[in-house]
């Protein structure tokens, strides 16, 4: 049956349409390009925008990796990976450095990306100004005329109500000194990785029908105030499995008593470090009672 699918599911005409949109988005870094999003065999919110972008970019030689919140093994990541195994018969991998295309929801891998890679983001709400200005006609004008004061109003409100910029996901950025862009709900910890990244970064919003891009080696600046500068924000802890102290950590509950531990959100990064002999405090050979190499 799977032979009946066109390569990577979408028909060639649709892929061409999406590629044209992607080329335009690459030509205008950070600019939202409308596209005619197609129905995909999965619900919105499951990354239909990212899947369409991946479908339009895939070639048979590709090796793809799919992550959800940094993990390769969640239902969402597994089903998207299987989708492309089935419809494109491409190889899949969990190794960041071996993948030629990585589709992601909510994270950028810890391992540095290179010029031969494409990172595809799944985007729920592409419009960073939507929060304070619901009128699409008005936000489009604000982008066209570079009127971005409103973005700082949002950050102002954060400081007024919380004493600091409390936005920690989907933290707005300015790309190449021009367009303000929503980086999708990645933690702001990941924001600096977008800047001067050698890989091509593509963003797809299925329900909202928008594509945008950060071409390789573009400057991406996180917005802030002079007296409240952008900070990366990271738990003051190290991974209890691999002892990494510079990766983004999740705090997870590990037993019925509600005990918690910090672990890398990037599961592949964590496993690779453990394979190299790095051990965190829950995972030392002398520590009994835990077999937590993988949770």
């Amino acid at each position, binding site marked *: 049956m799977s032979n009946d699918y066109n390569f990577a599911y979408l028909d060639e005409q649709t892929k061409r349409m999406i590629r044209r949109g992607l080329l335009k988005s690459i030509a205008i870094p950070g600019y939202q390009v409308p596209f005619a999003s197609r129905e995909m065999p999965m619900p919105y919110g499951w990354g239909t925008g990212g899947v369409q972008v991946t479908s339009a970019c895939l070639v048979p030689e590709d090796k793809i990796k799919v992550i959800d919140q940094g993990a390769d093994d969640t239902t969402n990541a597994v089903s998207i990976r299987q989708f492309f195994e089935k419809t494109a018969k491409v190889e899949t991998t969990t190794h960041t450095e071996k993948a030629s295309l990585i589709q992601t929801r909510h994270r950028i891998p810890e391992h540095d990306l290179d010029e031969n890679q494409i990172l595809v983001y799944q985007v729920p709400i592409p419009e960073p100004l939507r929060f304070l200005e619901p009128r699409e006609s008005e936000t489009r*004008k604000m982008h066209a005329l570079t009127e971005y*004061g*409103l973005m700082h*109003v949002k950050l*102002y409100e954060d*400081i*007024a109500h919380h004493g600091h910029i409390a936005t920690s996901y989907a933290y707005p950025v300015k790309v190449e000194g021009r367009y303000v862009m929503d980086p999708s709900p990645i933690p702001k910890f990941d924001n600096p990785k977008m800047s001067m990244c050698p890989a091509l970064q593509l963003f797809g919003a299925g329900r909202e029908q928008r594509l945008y891009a950060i071409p390789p080696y573009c400057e991406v600046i996180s917005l802030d*105030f002079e*007296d*409240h500068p952008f900070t990366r924000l990271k738990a003051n802890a190290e991974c209890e499995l691999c002892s990494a102290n510079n990766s983004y950590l999740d705090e997870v509950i590990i037993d019925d008593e509600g005990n918690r531990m910090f672990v890398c959100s990037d599961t592949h990064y964590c496993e690779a470090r453990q394979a190299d002999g790095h051990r965190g405090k829950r995972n030392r050979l002398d520590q009994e009672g835990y077999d937590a190499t993988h949770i």
Partner: protein
Amino acid sequence: MQPIFEATGISKSYGHILGCSNINLSLYSGEVMGIVGESGSGKSTLLNCLSAQIMPDQGEVIFRSPSRGEVDILKLSEAEQRYLARTEWAYVHQNPRDGLRMSVSAGGNVGERLMNIGNRHYGNIRTKAEDWMSRVELDTSRIDHRPSTFSGGMQQRLQIARNLVTEPRLIFMDEPTGGLDVSVQARLLDLLRSLVQELSLSVIIVTHDLAVIRMLADRMVVMKNGNVVEAGLADQVLDDPQHPYTQLLVSSILQV
């Protein structure tokens, strides 16, 4: 001295409905011009043409900008018009909901224009917001409250603070006291009058209320069916109206 603002031959129709017809109007720096007339006489249409919110069918609007010199407003690009509108101009709506962001704190509302023109220092923005809140007699301890928790009069004063924070040269106002109780109106008018004097603002104000004109305006025009039927010094027109329609307006207010 040349007027700071000069409009000539402004006409605007909505299909076959006349908005306003061939209006000439000029304003000197520090002067308040009142536009009066009954509902539907074309006041808002004229104000929106003068402030480049809508494009008139005919006419020219010249603004002598302190920073840019003489500009032909209707020939500017939309980007330039919008920039002018949030720096050297201001527009106060009748309904504060149209001029405020209801989901943003009072301080954020006042600070927005500062952020729009590139101010990136939170502490300075907040200090200016507090300063302007107290200048319009708002309790600065409410700086983090949303305008939806303010009374109508407070909302209108907040809208004025939000507009004046960038120290614009020219303010357009459309029935700024329109929706308010009489006592609240009086307080707002007092405030407007002292701000106009203190900052020597140039103002074009639309109202159907001659008491507002009496209190604020130096000169006035009277509109009827899209035309100006009488124009002159406000006191003279009010004390000695020449046109029968103005006489009717003035006598109807005197009866109240």
